[in-house]
C-alpha cells in the first residue's frame, strides 16, 4: 500500500510554502527519520522527515514549486503493507482539522452559562437580635479573620515580607507568629515573584496559603504568577488543578508616597477570569470576606487600604462570621440616586450622601465589596429604584470598575436611566507627591456631591 505525504505546516499560521528541495528521489529506500525534503516559508526552513519506512514512490510536486498549499499531497510512499494500515495517514485529516471545521461552522450564539442563584438568594447571614458589637479597627478584623481560619484549618498559613517577627509592615499580622509559630507564619526575603510562585505552588500542592504583599504595588513583580499561574491553571487543566491561595495587602493611594506606591489594582485583577477580587471597606466586611476568601477553592486577590486600616467599625460578636463572596451591600438606603463605590471610596460616598441629605437629595450608597464576580443585579436593582447613578472610585478613570458599571447600566439598565451615569475617579495622572497636587488628584466627597447634583439636574 502507499501513504500520501502531504505538505506540512511549519507554524500555526502557515497556509502555503515552497518545496525547496527533494533530498530523496523516486525509488529511494526511506527509513524512519530520514529527511525527505526541505520546506521553506518566508520565515523558516523545515526538514520534512519520514515517519514511516518504505520506498519513495511518485513525486507529485516538483522541487522549487512555490505556493504549495498545506495539506497538498506532494509524494507517495510505498510501504511493504505488512500491518501499516494503522500508521497510514488518512486521506481526509486536513478537512477534519479543528481550525478548518470551526471556520465553516455556522455561527451560533454561545450557550449561556449554567444559571446561578439570583442575587437575593444569598445574603449576609442574619445577625440574631440582641447580638453585641465590638468596635474594631480594620487591621485587627483582618488579623482576627486569619487567626480564626488558621485555628480551624491547619492547611492555612501566612507568608510574606515582615509578616512574622516584625509583626507585619502595617501590623495586620500582629500576634500571629506568637500563636502559630514560624512554620505557619513565614517571613520571606524581598522576592515577590519568587514567593508569589511558591505560594501558588503550595496551593496547587494542597495547602491554603495567605500571601501578603507589603503593598500591591510590589505585586506587579509577581503578577505573572497571580494571573498566569493562579488564575488560569484550573481551566487549562480541565478542572484538575486547584489553587486556593489568597493574595492580600494594601492597595490604592496611601498618603504622600508618590506615584510608584499609589495605585489601585482593582480594575487590573477584576479583568481576569479565574480570579476572585475582593475590596472591602469596613471591619465587619473585612473580617467576613477574609474568612470567605481563605475558605474559597479559587484564587483570591484581596485588596485592602492602608488609610482605612486604622478606622474602627462595629463587628458583630458572633462565632464564625463569614460573608458571601460576590454580593454587594446597600450601606445606606435612599430613593433619589444611587452612588456605587468600593473600598475607601465608600467612606467618601457616605460623606457625600450625608451632605446631599442636607440638600434634600436622598442617596442610596452601594458597596460592591467584591469586584469579581461583580454583583450586577444589586446595581441594576438600585438603578431601577432611583433611576440615577454615580460611581465613585479611588483609581484612574480609564478602563476602570467605573467604566464597567457604566457599561452594565447601558447594556442592561438603559430603560431605567433618567440621566447619564457619571463617574467620579482620580485624575488621569501618576499620583504626585506635593500635598496640594495629591489632594487635587484624588477623589473626595465634594466631587461626588457635584456629580450627584448633575445627574439629579439639581443645579
Amino acid at each position, binding site marked *: 500500500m502507499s501513504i500520501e505525504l502531504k505538505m506540512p505546516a511549519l507554524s500555526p499560521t502557515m497556509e502555503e510554502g515552497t518545496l525547496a528541495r527533494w533530498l530523496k528521489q523516486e525509488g529511494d529506500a526511506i527509513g524512519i527519520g530520514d529527511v525527505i525534503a526541505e520546506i521553506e516559508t518566508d520565515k523558516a526552513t523545515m526538514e520534512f522527515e519520514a515517519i514511516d519506512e518504505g520506498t519513495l514512490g511518485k513525486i507529485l510536486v516538483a522541487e522549487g514549486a512555490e505556493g504549495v498549499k498545506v495539506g497538498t499531497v506532494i509524494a507517495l510512499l510505498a510501504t511493504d503493507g505488512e500491518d501499516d494500515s494503522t*500508521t497510514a495517514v488518512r486521506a481526509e485529516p486536513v478537512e477534519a482539522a479543528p481550525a478548518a471545521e470551526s471556520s465553516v461552522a455556522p455561527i451560533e450564539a454561545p450557550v449561556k452559562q*449554567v444559571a446561578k442563584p439570583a442575587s437575593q438568594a444569598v445574603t449576609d447571614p442574619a445577625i440574631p437580635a440582641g447580638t453585641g458589637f465590638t468596635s474594631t479597627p480594620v487591621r485587627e478584623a483582618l488579623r482576627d479573620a486569619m487567626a480564626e481560619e488558621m485555628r480551624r484549618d491547619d492547611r492555612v498559613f501566612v507568608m510574606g515580607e515582615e509578616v512574622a517577627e516584625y509583626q507585619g509592615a502595617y501590623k495586620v499580622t500582629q500576634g500571629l507568629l506568637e500563636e502559630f509559630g514560624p512554620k505557619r507564619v*513565614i517571613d520571606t526575603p524581598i522576592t515577590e515573584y519568587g514567593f508569589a*510562585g511558591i505560594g501558588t505552588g503550595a496551593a496547587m*500542592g494542597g495547602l491554603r496559603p495567605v500571601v501578603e504583599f507589603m503593598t500591591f504595588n510590589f505585586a506587579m513583580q509577581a503578577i505573572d504568577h497571580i494571573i498566569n499561574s493562579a488564575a488560569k491553571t*484550573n481551566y487549562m487543566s480541565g478542572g*484538575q488543578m486547584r489553587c486556593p491561595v489568597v493574595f492580600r495587602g494594601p492597595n490604592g493611594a496611601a498618603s504622600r508616597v508618590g506615584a510608584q506606591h499609589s495605585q489601585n489594582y482593582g480594575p487590573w485583577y477584576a479583568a481576569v477570569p479565574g480570579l476572585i477580587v475582593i475590596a472591602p471597606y469596613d471591619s465587619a466586611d473585612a473580617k467576613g470576606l477574609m474568612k470567605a476568601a481563605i475558605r474559597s477553592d479559587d484564587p483570591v486577590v484581596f485588596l485592602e487600604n492602608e488609610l482605612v486600616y486604622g478606622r474602627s467599625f462595629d463587628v458583630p460578636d458572633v462565632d464564625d462570621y463569614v460573608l458571601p463572596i460576590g454580593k454587594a451591600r446597600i450601606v445606606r438606603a435612599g430613593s433619589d440616586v444611587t452612588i456605587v463605590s468600593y473600598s475607601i471610596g465608600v467612606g467618601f460616598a457616605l460623606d457625600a450622601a450625608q451632605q446631599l441629605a442636607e440638600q434634600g437629595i436622598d442617596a442610596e450608597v452601594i458597596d460592591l465589596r467584591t469586584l469579581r464576580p461583580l454583583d450586577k443585579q444589586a446595581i441594576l436593582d438600585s438603578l431601577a429604584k432611583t433611576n440615577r447613578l454615580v460611581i465613585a472610585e479611588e483609581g484612574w478613570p480609564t478602563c476602570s470598575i467605573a467604566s464597567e458599571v457604566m457599561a452594565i447600566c447601558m447594556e442592561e439598565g438603559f430603560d431605567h436611566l433618567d440621566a447619564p451615569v457619571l463617574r467620579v475617579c482620580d485624575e488621569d495622572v501618576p499620583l504626585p507627591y506635593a500635598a496640594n497636587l495629591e489632594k487635587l488628584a484624588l477623589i473626595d466627597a465634594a466631587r461626588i456631591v457635584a456629580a450627584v447634583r448633575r445627574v439629579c439636574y439639581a443645579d
Partner: protein
Amino acid sequence: MAKPAMTRKNKPKSDAAEDRDFALHSLQEAHQQSPRYAATADEMLTFYEQMLLIRRFEEKAGQLYGLGLIGGFCHLYIGQEAVAVGLQSALSEGLDSVITGYRDHGHMLAYGIDPDVIMAELTGRQAGISHGKGGSMHMFSTQHKFYGGHGIVGAQVALGGGLALAHKYREDGGLCLAYFGDGAANQGQVYETFNMASLWQLPIVFVVENNQYAMGTAVRRSSAETEFYRRGTAFRIPGMKVNGMDVLEVRGAAEVAFKHVREGNGPVLIECSTYRYRGHSMSDPAKYRTREEVQDVREHKDPIEGLKKVLIEQGRAEDDLKAIDKAIRARVAQAADFAENSPQPDRQELYTDVLVGEY
C-alpha cells in the same frame, strides 16, 4: 611581606566551613565514582520501552502537526528522552511531585499516563487530559502528582518550590522534581526560588535540561556561566553535572540526589546535558545550528541507540527489540487514531472550570 598574611587569609576559617563547602561538591563526586545505575534486565527493558514510546509519540505528534490536526505551539522532546525516564523512574509513585515547562509530553509519558489522552489533548478534543482546554503546553495529572505543563519560562521553578514547601509542611516525606531548560536558567525567579529553597531546606531537586539552545540562542551566547550545575553554589545548593544522553547515568544521579534530599538536606541542582533533535517548536527556522551538528549527536550520542547497544551486548535478540518497536508504533498509531476521531469539546466546556465555587 604580605605573602604569608594572604596565604592565611585564603585558608578556610574553620572545619565547619570546610565541611559545608565540601558538601557542595560531594554529590558530584559520589556520582562520578559510579555514574551508571546498575539496572536489572527488566528495568533496562522498561527504560528502553519508555524512551522509545516518547520518541515514537513525538514523531507522530510532529506528523499530526504537519497535517493541521495539532495547532498552536508544539514542543517535541525527541533527543531528551533519557532525562525524564531516568529521573522519574527513581521517584516514589504517589508521593513525589513533578512539575515542568511547556516541553511536557515526555514527562507525562514517562509517568505511564495513557498516550490516548495526551494525544487527544494535542488535537484539542474532549477526551484530552485537560478536555482540550490546555493543549500541548498545559497538561496535568493530579492523580500522578504531575503538576504541569507551564507556558511561562521559569514559572514552574517557583511553583515547584511551593510544591516542595507543601511536602515539608505536611511532613509527608515526598520531594518535588522541578525541570527547566537552559533558557529558563537565566530567569530571575529561578534564583529567588533557589534562595528560599535553600534557606528553608525544601525537599526539591532542580533539574536543568540543558539542550544547548534556548529557542535559537546557544548557551554560550546567552549565559555568562554555561556550567549550569554551578549556579546553585551562591545559594549553597550542591550541583551535579550529568550526561543526559545516558538513561543509566541519569538514573544513577537521581539515586544520589534523591537520597540527599530525602535525608532532609535541602535542595540539589542537577544539570543534564542533552540535545533536542527537532526545532524549539514546530515553527523553527533551523538556521542557528548545522545539520551536521544534529546528525553527529544522533549518530553518536542517541540515548535510545545507546541503550539498545547495551541490551544487545547483554544478549537481547535484535528481533525482540524490533518487536518492541513495532508494538510501540502500533500503540502510538492507536493514540493518534483516537485523538483524531474523538469529538471536539462540548460547547458547554467553554464555561466550565473557570472558578471552582459558585458565587
